[in-house]
């Protein structure tokens, strides 16, 4: 490219960069940010004009048509999308940016054999890789964020090795492409793109819903880098500059998100493989001091008849938080897998944590049990391998053994010299209670007596597993757990009393509020409180939404005055002088365990210190732990008032009650 007015061009380039910097600079204040956004858009328009003016275009129609299609689609989506879908939209846009980057790098590399220097070629290859992996990674992230894909981490066997091998292959191909003769390069380029796309996929699928904010911030950075690499190959300073700025921004946001969740970037991307699904849950359950369990052994000791055993099991099931089901081949023989699934669904619908522990030899061939359960329609995310689930038993309220014997026989590890000594087993005996739905209490194939059957905390439900489960299910459904109504009412009254006498109220919105679409009601509630002369502030935790700053957008949509939105560090000292805190759909971000207890997944995570306030009103859907799986000790605090159920409905009840009072 000939640049006759080198210095002039350079000057104009820097002017455009300057305008862009001005735009970002204006982003520092909410009232100027809108202008900053338009300034940045103007800078890019100038840049495009500059490039068109300088190099012209040979294909005006292609440019025009593509521009119209792309812009129309972008504009249409931007108008149509709701604020809660923003993270998914951002992820998909990231993907589009990635596609553009790697396609440009690809074309330039194809053309470039003759005039590209090795350095340009190298950056072109980096652009190719980064763009392609950003594309596929963003698509996965977008899919997970928009619930089109399952949010749980999907972990492949030897996942870390797959990632490493894939990365190594990409690096090897990049090196090969640098030295390959120009004829064969194109195949290497295509291969690099394909492998990078694959890399993006396997890299992102194992990142769970809770870590999405980190992933999309990270992908934001890589799109920027891809654009910068793209600029290196065509030696365009504007591309490099803009790309680098975006890269910096994405890096900062990634760091902010990691810090807010107390995760290292490395651990987000490379989770511990020992208990792949939810290492968080075990730790969480350790903290649950479950008072119910202490009296339970007494109940089980004087077992008299099948019927009382059945009742006890139902009672256990109702009180348990965490249940592990251990299916054995006996279940398959009794054709009880459908009843097992019904039972587990019932438990899940009651908000219990249910998992299936699959022993490697639970079926009659490798993976057989998984197939049998899959046939019955189990969600395969619930199926856990032995090594993954074994550490979880000790935190489990009860294990339900169905037609399994040897695989849960503690004699395998407790006694030497028996036929099964040394065989790896599922550690069901470590759970607080064990319920066995076996046909009889005879030994299994190995012929070794199972001492588990005689334990104090074991309940034996002998007979046909299918019938036993049907009875359990019936009893579980009949049982009236509804003592909630009256207590809810008095809780509401308590909350109203607390709110109407409060001088200062802080509202803590969480993602649950956004899910319940309760932000409008919450804002209305805030204005009613203000009209009563109460001072109201909103405390926004950095990870309150699904991407950095998401909660602020959601509240802004509900027309809140942004002066009332306070960052964590700013508001934390104020809680101790606050009369009442209203929590809507937030859990982990107000969990005092983060600062009070060592060794939980959230220990050290900065939280909103709501527990310092005089009264805490929790308007959450349920009292279950949040993403981290750590029980929220705030819920048990005597000054806490729990208003469970749909947040929007709760907010409405509060509004109505307050209005009535005035």
């Amino acid at each position, binding site marked *: 490219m000939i640049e006759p007015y080198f210095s002039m061009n350079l000057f104009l380039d820097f002017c455009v960069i300057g305008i862009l910097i001005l735009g970002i600079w204006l982003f520092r204040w909410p009232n100027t940010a809108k202008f900053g956004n338009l300034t940045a858009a103007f800078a890019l328009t100038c840049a495009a004009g500059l490039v068109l003016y300088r190099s012209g275009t040979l294909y005006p129609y292609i440019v025009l048509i593509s521009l119209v299609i792309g812009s129309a689609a972008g504009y249409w*989506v931007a108008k149509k999308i709701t604020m809660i879908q923003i993270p998914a939209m951002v992820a998909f846009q990231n993907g589009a*940016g990635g596609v*553009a980057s790697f396609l440009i790098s690809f074309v330039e590399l194809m053309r470039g054999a003759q005039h590209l220097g090795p350095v340009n070629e190298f950056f072109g290859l980096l652009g190719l890789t980064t763009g392609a992996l950003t594309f596929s990674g963003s698509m996965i992230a977008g899919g997970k964020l928009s619930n089109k894909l399952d949010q749980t981490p999907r972990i492949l066997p030897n996942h870390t090795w797959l990632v490493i091998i894939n990365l190594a292959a990409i690096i090897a191909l990049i090196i090969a492409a640098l030295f390959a003769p120009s004829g064969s390069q194109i195949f290497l380029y295509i291969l690099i793109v394909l492998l990078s796309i694959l890399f993006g996929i396997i890299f992102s699928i194992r990142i769970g819903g809770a870590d999405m904010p980190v992933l999309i*911030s990270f992908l934001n950075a890589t799109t920027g880098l891809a654009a910068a690499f793209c*600029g290196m190959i065509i*030696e365009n300073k504007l591309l490099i500059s803009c*790309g680098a700025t975006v890269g910096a921004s994405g890096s900062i946001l990634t760091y902010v998100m990691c810090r807010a969740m107390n995760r290292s970037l490395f651990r987000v991307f490379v989770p511990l493989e020992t208990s792949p699904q939810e290492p968080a849950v075990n730790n969480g359950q350790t903290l649950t001091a479950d008072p119910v369990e202490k009296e339970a052994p007494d109940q089980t000791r004087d077992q008299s008849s099948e019927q009382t055993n059945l009742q006890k099991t139902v009672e256990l099931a109702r009180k348990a938080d965490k249940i592990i089901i251990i299916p054995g081949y006996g279940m398959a023989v009794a054709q009880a897998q459908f009843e097992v699934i019904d039972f587990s669904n019932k438990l899940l619908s009651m908000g219990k944590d249910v998992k299936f522990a699959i022993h490697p030899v639970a079926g009659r061939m490798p993976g057989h049990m998984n197939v049998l359960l899959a046939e019955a329609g189990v969600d395969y995310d619930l199926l856990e391998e032995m090594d993954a689930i074994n550490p979880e038993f000790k935190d489990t309220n009860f294990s339900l053994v169905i037609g399994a014997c040897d695989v849960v026989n503690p004699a395998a590890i407790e006694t030497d010299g028996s036929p099964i000594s040394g065989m790896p087993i599922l550690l069901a005996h470590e759970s607080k209670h064990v319920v066995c739905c076996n046909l009889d209490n005879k030994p299994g194939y190995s012929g070794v007596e199972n001492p588990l059957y005689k334990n104090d905390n074991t309940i034996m439900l002998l007979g046909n597993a299918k019938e036993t489960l049907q009875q359990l299910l019936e009893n579980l459904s009949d049982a009236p757990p509804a003592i909630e109504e009256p207590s809810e009412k008095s809780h509401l009254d308590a909350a109203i009393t607390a709110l109407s006498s409060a001088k200062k109220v802080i509202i803590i919105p969480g993602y649950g509020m956004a899910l319940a679409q309760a932000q409008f009601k919450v804002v209305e509630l805030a204005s009613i409180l203000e009209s009563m002369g109460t001072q109201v502030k909103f405390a926004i935790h950095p990870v309150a939404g699904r991407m950095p*700053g998401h909660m602020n957008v959601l509240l802004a949509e509900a027309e809140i005055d942004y*002066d009332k939105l306070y960052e964590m560090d700013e508001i934390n000292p104020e809680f101790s002088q606050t009369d009442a805190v209203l929590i809507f759909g937030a859990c982990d971000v107000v969990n005092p365990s983060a600062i009070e207890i060592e060794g939980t997944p959230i220990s050290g995570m900065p939280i909103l210190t709501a527990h310092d306030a005089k009264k805490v009103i929790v308007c959450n859907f349920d009292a279950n732990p949040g993403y981290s799986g750590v029980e929220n000790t705030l819920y048990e605090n005597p000054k806490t008032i729990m208003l469970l159920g749909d947040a929007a409905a709760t907010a409405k009840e509060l509004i109505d009650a307050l209005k009535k009072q005035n």
Partner: protein
Amino acid sequence: MTNLLLMAGVFLFSFIVGYFLISRIPTLLHTPLMSMTNAISAVTILGVLILFSVASTRTEQIIGSVAFVMAAFNLVGGFAITDRMLRLFKKKEAGGGK
């Protein structure tokens, strides 16, 4: 070579300036920020324009137009959604406490 150094300089300069500017942006605006920087990364649209400034084969034209559509989607969509979001950030002059 000078060109290469200049490019590296531009990269570093932008990264550092970007870093300092962006670390000052309040968390309140992080979502619009991300969405705007996303739109800025659609600067690759310049790359496509440069691509089309010289004679291209049919394949290159097709790839180029796909890239153009994507970049335009990102560019316009990104700025539009950011604008929409930022319009939501309102300050009530009357009534609202400062």
